[in-house]
């Protein structure tokens, strides 16, 4: 589903590469934690998958597309196959819960009937049934992140990227959010989650990819945050 072949990314005005010769393969339906300290390259890895950045060298393949060969006009089609969740939720403050989730479908030209059918179904799945008309500021942090997850998943993308989705949440809520991502993963969606929340990683025991100064230092199935079993 996602493959990195000896990928290096060096940003302009930076002498050190953010990612240095990464090779990695993520299969369809996997749940992968990307761990590492701040500045280790976790977000860069996600941005490369999303085609927000291009690799300085090496190949990135996502959903059968080689991104270095992908014309700009075809990038939106790729992004329709990837959902994104961020630490800061990125909800639209003037739209209610329903409208925030529906927005992702409306901008893609989906019909009103399908939006009316799919959005409540997705909100129910993330545990927000009955809160459709609430504005983001009327929700807790955990609920806001659920809205963001609903928006990322409403289009049923085969890949879901989560960049520190629990960074702004307390441990109990964080665990609920990751359990929700786990449920989404069970529907067949590939999840790649960047985090440095060791409690969550240790509890879920999924595949762990560890980065350190842009280098892949560990790729462990059913891993834990610190690397010990």
């Amino acid at each position, binding site marked *: 589903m996602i493959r990195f072949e000896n990928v290096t990314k060096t940003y302009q005005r930076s002498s050190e590469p953010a990612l240095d010769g990464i090779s990695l393969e993520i299969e369809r339906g996997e749940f992968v934690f990307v761990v590492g300290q701040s500045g280790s390259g976790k977000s860069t890895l996600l941005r490369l998958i*999303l085609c927000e950045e291009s690799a300085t060298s090496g190949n990135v393949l996502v959903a059968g597309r080689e991104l270095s060969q992908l014309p*700009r*006009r075809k990038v*939106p*089609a*790729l*992004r*329709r*196959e*990837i*959902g*994104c969740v961020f630490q800061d939720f*990125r909800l*639209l403050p*003037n739209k209610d819960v329903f409208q925030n989730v529906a*927005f*992702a479908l*409306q*901008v*893609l*030209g989906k*019909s*009103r009937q399908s939006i009316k059918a799919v959005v409540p179904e997705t909100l129910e799945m993330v545990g927000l049934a009955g809160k459709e008309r609430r504005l983001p500021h009327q929700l807790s942090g955990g609920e806001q992140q659920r809205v963001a997850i609903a*928006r990322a998943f409403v*289009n049923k993308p085969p890949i879901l990227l989560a960049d520190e989705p629990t960074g702004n949440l307390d441990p109990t809520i964080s665990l609920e959010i990751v359990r929700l991502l786990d449920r989404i993963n069970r529907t067949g969606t590939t999840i790649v989650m960047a985090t440095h929340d060791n409690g969550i990683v240790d509890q879920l025991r999924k595949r762990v990819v560890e980065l350190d100064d842009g280098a892949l230092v560990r790729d462990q199935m059913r891993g834990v945050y610190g690397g010990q079993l």
Partner: protein
Amino acid sequence: MRLQFILSEIWVALRRNLSMSISVALVTMVSVLFLGLGVLAQRQVDTMKDYWYDRVQVSIFLCTAKSDLPNCITGAVTDSQRTQIRSQLDAMKPLVKNVFPESQQQAYDRLKSQSKDSLTYREITPAQMPESFRVQLSDPTKYDVITSAFVGAPGVGDVQDQRPILDPLFNVLRGLSFGALGLAGLMVLCSALLVATTIRQTAFGRRRETGIMRLVGASAFNIQLPFILETLIATVVGSALAIGVLWAMVRYGIGYLGKKLPINFITTADLWTVTPWLVGAAAGLAILTAWLTLRRYLRV
């Protein structure tokens, strides 16, 4: 994107950016107003030219007994020379539309009526006035055909075209219209810069929406479309206001002058002829400016 969604998003955005949208509409109004004034002034000059050139004549002055013109040293025009000139003029139809012969007495009477407040005519006798053929041309610009045919012909003292008398007036009017077009150019530049600034501000204010649109896979066209349509709406409103002001100026201002002065003026029909071009130019420029600004400042 579906039309209803786009329209509702645009409505919300226009309400949110009301003051900026109004400023774009007003600056567009002033730009289109100047542009319209310049274009209409050009049409006015053309209308006046058509009107006056239709009335100006080429005068073929014949020799008098006392004429000191170089071609008149043989004395006054003879009957056969006069007949020859007349038949030559008749042969030049349809370029020659009408020929009005003016005798020495008629020329004297006209001078008398034109100079009634002056005593000059009292020192002049009808015999001193040149007899002439006043020639009206179907195409006044082909004056040189008459000149080449009659200058130096036997019995012809001089050939004069009245057209150059009017040219300074037309030149002034045309200069004014170019001035208006120059101002319009400056205003159009202001308008384009304002549109660019407005779009930059709006794009910055809506970066979260556009960011989400980009991430969920909306195409560049879909992300840019609401901005372009908002600009287009403000521009069309501004252009419509300008056309309204121009209509009032032509209908009431020029309409009033038309009743008072014996000059052919432009009418609202002229305005309706140029309206699609004015609105089209304003809309085209707004779309182009918006598109270029979005390419530069909106990440898609």
